[in-house]
């Protein structure tokens, strides 16, 4: 581990601070200059690409030039910064330099120095969420800066119990990773699991939160996301309040939430902004849409290949006449059409959004109509595949959409092999896989299995807030009660 740095420290071990500086000077953006004119001469060094020059010019140099610098303590007193670090430890010096500090020496040969933070803060403005857009509700989304992100979360939870544990992960990237939880609500077991896994993590570059989620998931072979990534601070705050653990990664505009159960993948945070009946209906529609999206093309293939008896006699005319001149068997027909849709989707995702839209229209309408006219696919299947593609977009978690896209193909293959029976077998494997899966050690299929009736209040359906006085059992929260339950009112008679 950390081979790259080992090499560097070999040089440093013999050398003192001046030797170190000599080593850094090999890099073109390292600045080291001496200022002899001021009352007291001093040396300044920094990585030009990391610091904010304005801070240096406005807040450091004028003070250094005006004051008589007798010692480093005097430097600390002179500068308008609250945390001027005075140290001779090479590791700290190195870390600070690489995080955008300015190194100040009074004596070029001494190994003790002062470090002042002047890092360049570059971050986009907080914008509206794109992947998890919602019509109602707040419109803030996370950005790439961890400080901004933590700020977005903390302003929603201004309590001292919200605790942050920081880690630095990645031998090359040195990414700051923060684990957030609410002390007194979140079960420590979950926090410990996350911290343990992060500590044991050995990786070179963490460039996004998805790296972390892929690395610390319970089952890395599984297609299913076992941690949710979200760009909505409100969703994160809500999750923290339920008792989950949140992982914020520097440089990533997505924040990870865990543990999750599969139902979480069907829940948009928008569901909490609308009426509970409407939210419940939408959730059921999403569950239906996802199962429809996975199953419908395989069922088409199975029925047309093996089970012609199942087709009602009135539907027969439509089906047979649409398939009469198609040269391909249903399986190939379906695979080709599915691949076409995937192609369109992939092309749309790689292109800028405006061109992407055009591709969608060209692909959807022109190619589809042409394929049917040319007798390559039946129009019934075209409708089915297009509907299935549409249905797969209903899931509010983007990564789940990818899962659905891929999950269809094994089903399709087994449908071609054994018809409906093949679909049933694929379903058995899927069911077992989901039963086996855990998220941070918690059962993934909860509240379906293990069956917890009380947790159904916020899964397939969402009951009104007044019924949500307790936290879901799933998180094993230390404090189960969210707010005191309302007392049951006496039943009033008419006009009383």
């Amino acid at each position, binding site marked *: 581990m950390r081979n790259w740095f080992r090499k560097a420290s070999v040089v440093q071990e013999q050398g003192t601070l001046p030797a170190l500086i000599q080593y850094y000077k090999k890099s073109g953006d390292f600045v080291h200059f001496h200022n002899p004119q001021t009352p007291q001469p001093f040396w300044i060094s920094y990585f030009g690409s990391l610091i904010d020059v304005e801070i240096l010019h406005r807040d450091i140099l004028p003070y250094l030039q005006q004051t008589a610098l007798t010692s480093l303590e005097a430097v600390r007193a002179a500068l308008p910064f609250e945390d001027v670090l005075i140290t001779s430890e090479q590791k700290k010096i190195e870390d600070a330099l690489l995080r955008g500090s300015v190194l100040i020496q009074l004596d070029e040969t001494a190994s003790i120095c002062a470090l002042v933070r002047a890092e360049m803060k570059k971050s986009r403005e907080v914008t509206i969420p794109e992947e998890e857009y919602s019509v109602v509700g707040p419109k803030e989304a996370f950005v790439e800066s961890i400080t901004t992100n933590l700020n977005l979360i903390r302003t929603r939870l201004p309590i001292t119990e919200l605790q942050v544990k920081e880690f630095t992960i990645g031998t090359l990237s040195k990414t700051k990773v923060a684990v957030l939880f609410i002390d007194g609500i979140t079960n420590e077991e979950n926090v410990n699991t996350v911290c343990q896994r992060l500590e044991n993590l050995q990786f070179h570059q963490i460039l996004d939160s998805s790296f972390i989620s892929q690395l610390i998931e319970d089952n890395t072979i599984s297609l299913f996301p076992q941690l949710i990534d979200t760009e909505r601070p409100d969703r994160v705050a809500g999750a923290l309040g339920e008792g989950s653990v949140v992982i914020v990664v520097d440089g990533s505009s997505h924040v990870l939430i865990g543990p999750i159960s599969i139902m979480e993948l069907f829940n948009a945070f928008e569901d909490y902004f609308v009426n509970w009946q409407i939210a419940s209906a939408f959730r059921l529609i999403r569950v239906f849409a996802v199962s429809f999206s996975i199953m419908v093309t395989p069922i088409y293939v199975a029925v047309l290949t*093996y*089970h012609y008896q199942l087709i*009602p006699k009135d539907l027969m005319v439509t089906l047979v006449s649409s398939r009469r001149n198609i040269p391909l068997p249903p399986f190939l027909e379906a695979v080709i059409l599915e691949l076409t849709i995937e192609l369109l989707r992939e092309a749309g995702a790689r292109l800028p959004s405006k061109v992407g839209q055009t591709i969608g229209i060209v692909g959807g309408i022109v190619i589809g109509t042409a394929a049917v006219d040319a007798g390559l696919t039946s129009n019934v299947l075209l409708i089915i595949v297009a509907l299935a593609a549409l249905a797969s977009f209903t899931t509010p978690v983007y990564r789940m959409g990818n899962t659905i896209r891929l999950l269809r193909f094994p089903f399709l293959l087994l449908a071609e092999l054994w018809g*409906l029976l093949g679909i*049933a*077998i694929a379903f058995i494997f899927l*069911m*077992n896989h989901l*039963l086996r899966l855990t998220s941070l050690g918690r059962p993934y299929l909860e509240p379906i299995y*293990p069956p917890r009736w009380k947790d159904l209040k916020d899964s397939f359906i969402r009951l009104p807030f007044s019924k949500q006085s307790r936290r879901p059992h799933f998180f094993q929260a230390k404090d189960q009660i969210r707010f005191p339950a309302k007392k049951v009112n006496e039943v009033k008679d008419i006009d009383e």
Partner: protein
Amino acid sequence: MSIQIKDEFRVSPFLVLFLVHGTQYGIGVLSFQRDVASIVGHDAWISVIITGVILHLLIWMMYSMLNKDKGDLITINQHTFGKWIGNLLSIFIIIFILSHTITVLRSYIEIVQVWMFPLLKTWPFALVILLAVYYIVTSGFRVVTGVSFLSVVLPFYLVFTFFVPIEFSNFRNLLPVFDHSFVEMARSIKTTALSFSGIEHILFFYPFIQKPESSQKWAHYGNLLTTSLYLLIMVVTLVFFEHEYLNSVIWPTLMLWKIIELPIVERFEIIGVTSWAVVMIPIICVMFWSASRGIKEIFKVKQKKALVLLLFICFMISCFLTEREMIQQFNKWQSEVSFFILLIYIPILFVCYHIRYKLRRKG
């Protein structure tokens, strides 16, 4: 004496309902009506009720042993009959369970071959099913229970399909009630033993239940659910078929589905046979789990290895059963043995165990 299982591997008591019901309600449902009705005719539903009641009694017996022993079948056998004879008996039971899995698997494949794919080869299909079973059983008892749970809950919609044939039924067929002698009733109970067997697995998974004493009522509920479903199916079959016609039908339940015609689906029996793959899976899984668990305890080998061996034997024998007549003969033997184990062995064990227990206490 007692067996201690880590808490994280245990399941909550109420899931026993699904374990018991899931293992009982399987392949027998599709064909049990004819054998019963050929003896007691339109009174077959009464013998279903009687069998249900007898099974409640057996569940009570098993729990009264298990609650005292805090172990499982193997330890109970050892405590009652000594180490050697006890283990021998346990091995017999394990062999019985193994042959039961063969019955279930082969009968299901036969149904698929008759109703859906006449040219389906037995062995590739059996391999795939057993692969699924391996995947499930190696995931541990929690997942096996989960499979039983989902396999009971998800295909539950099939219950509603049994009401459809009533449109073409004649309830006069059930009358007059109790038109057969007690001897005939007793004989008919024997034929239902295979369809009702499955409760014996309580003797294996008892230590895997949290607060196992409290699970007894759930086991009773499970059996009650099975009995009521069997009763429903039996009554519908009796009113749907004329007695003489029923005698010539091999799978009456599938014939019940054949009459169902929905606007989007004609010929419902294909959906039924397909759904039955999901219904059948937990039976095989629980059985393999129990059998491999038993072998692990008797011979002190790894459960995974025992499981692989059992799966292999099951696979080989299933492939050797090729003809309908052979399968039927095998099922007949299995039914006889089921009857013996459920209605003779368990009561005897119950009596012996309690005598031994009293003696040991005095001593």
